[in-house]
């Protein structure tokens, strides 16, 4: 089992990350440039990080950037790695990593559906996955307001007694 320190120095040497940190017990965070993600994932997979736990995205609306997060896990070392890269929010294009981790396919579809990030090379990207007949901006973007959407689409109940008065019930119980 490699120690955390040697792993961090390995990563620093091989990936030349912009920044590394240790956010939690046995967890390493590394920020790389977007074009370095592919190489970094391939390198880490060879180092024993064989499992892609999750691929997700963060919307930094103030910086006008999306941050893609790849979390890998090594079952031999018991270490999680967060690999992060920022891409432009206005031009959210990225390449797929399904050639390295085939399991990323559905995560990419999900990120595309919820954030609108397009992964070139993932052929199923444009099929709807979770949402059906969606007619607004991707819902997990920060500028999407679910309350307003809900109010406009799904009417609320005006008062609590309405149902009781409608059915004429409520008195006998």
């Amino acid at each position, binding site marked *: 089992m490699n120690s955390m320190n040697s792993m961090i120095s390995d990563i620093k040497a091989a990936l030349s990350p912009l920044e590394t940190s240790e956010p939690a*017990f046995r967890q390493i965070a590394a920020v790389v440039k977007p074009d370095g993600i592919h190489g970094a994932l391939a390198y880490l997979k060879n180092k024993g990080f064989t499992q892609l736990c*999750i691929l997700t995205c963060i919307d930094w609306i103030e910086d006008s950037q999306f941050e893609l997060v790849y*979390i890998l896990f090594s079952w031999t070392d018991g270490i999680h790695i967060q690999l992060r890269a920022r891409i432009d929010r206005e031009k959210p294009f990225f390449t797929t990593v399904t050639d390295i981790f*085939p399991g990323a396919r559905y995560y990419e579809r999900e990120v595309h559906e919820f954030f609108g990030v397009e992964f070139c090379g993932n052929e199923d990207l444009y099929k709807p996955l*979770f949402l059906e007949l969606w007619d607004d901006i991707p819902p997990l973007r920060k500028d999407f307001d679910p309350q307003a959407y809900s109010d406009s689409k799904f009417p609320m109940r005006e008062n609590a007694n309405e149902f009781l008065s409608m059915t004429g019930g409520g008195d006998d119980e």
Partner: protein
Amino acid sequence: MNEVKLFLGPQHPGMHGNYSVHMYVDGDIINKSRPTPGFLHRGFEKLMERRLWMGNLALIPRICVPEPDINEMVYAMGVEALAGIDVPEKAHWIRMLVLELARIAVHTMSLGFIGGPTGMYTATYWAIAQRDLILDLFEELSGARIYHMYIIPGGVRKDLPDGFAGHVLEKMAELETKLPEFGELILKHPVIHARAKDNIMLPAEVVWELGVTGVGMRSATGLANDLRKVKPYARYDEVEFEVPVAVYSDALTRLNLKFREIYQSISIVRQVLEKMPADGPVNVPVSPGNALRWTVPAGMVYAAVESSRGEYGYFIVSDGREKPYRIAVRGASYPQGLLGIEKYLKGYRIDDASLWMDTMGVCSPEIDR
């Protein structure tokens, strides 16, 4: 060749939960299948950004309905890592107790649900009744049967009630007398063998390709890849337990593994009750003042626990304010429930599709969120 399009689900008795597998069949054989999630999509990740750090406690257990405690645990672990909270010793042990009881409940239920696809309804009836005994324990502990909201950042909500340890031991003893009956009825039944043996295979290379964890991974690779062993959380490094493994993963092996894990969990529960400190605080206040105005320092952390279906994790981002900036959920059944169904259900029969859902442990609410 005359292909027929079929919907297995969402309203099909063989489907657990609101999930759908669309397939093209030729006779009984599946030629092509495609998972259709999203029927349970509630937009949790968005809703969590709109709730306070403490307010989220009510929301998170609803992500995985059969086993809600893992949600509370990962959320608590992640927030504690971000805010640098040290959890009192006793709280760790109580958390383990809750998690293991939940694991027993889920495994018992999933053993019983094998009755759905195979038609063994008697097993279902018996197993659900056994699970109810554990839900009674939860009710005594937290006041709720399903959604407990018991594990909170900083510890657990309150101490164990008086006499709780005794009740747990009683129920465990009763469960141990009933489990051999299930073994007899389910795992040794020749017709179940005919249905489940050499069926719904999961080869080791597929495990690595999809990223399947949990029982699926352990039954195929022969490695004891359990987060409780590999990266212990709470006090799992201080209890002794085995992780059952196998090198040939068919539906029957996975059932067997689940059955053996129940015994391991019972043993962990006993050890926890033995080694737990008798007194001491069970939680620490997370903030000096109003917990509703509590802010968590900025940072990003990934927390994961071993659920009954595999690695279950939250990726939590805080920007230092009163609400989380983003929380992403890694559902444990994501790989086998989506890509697995799409790629590896081909060639099996219609009857086996729900067996896949059952033995792999596909939990639709955590896929949809």
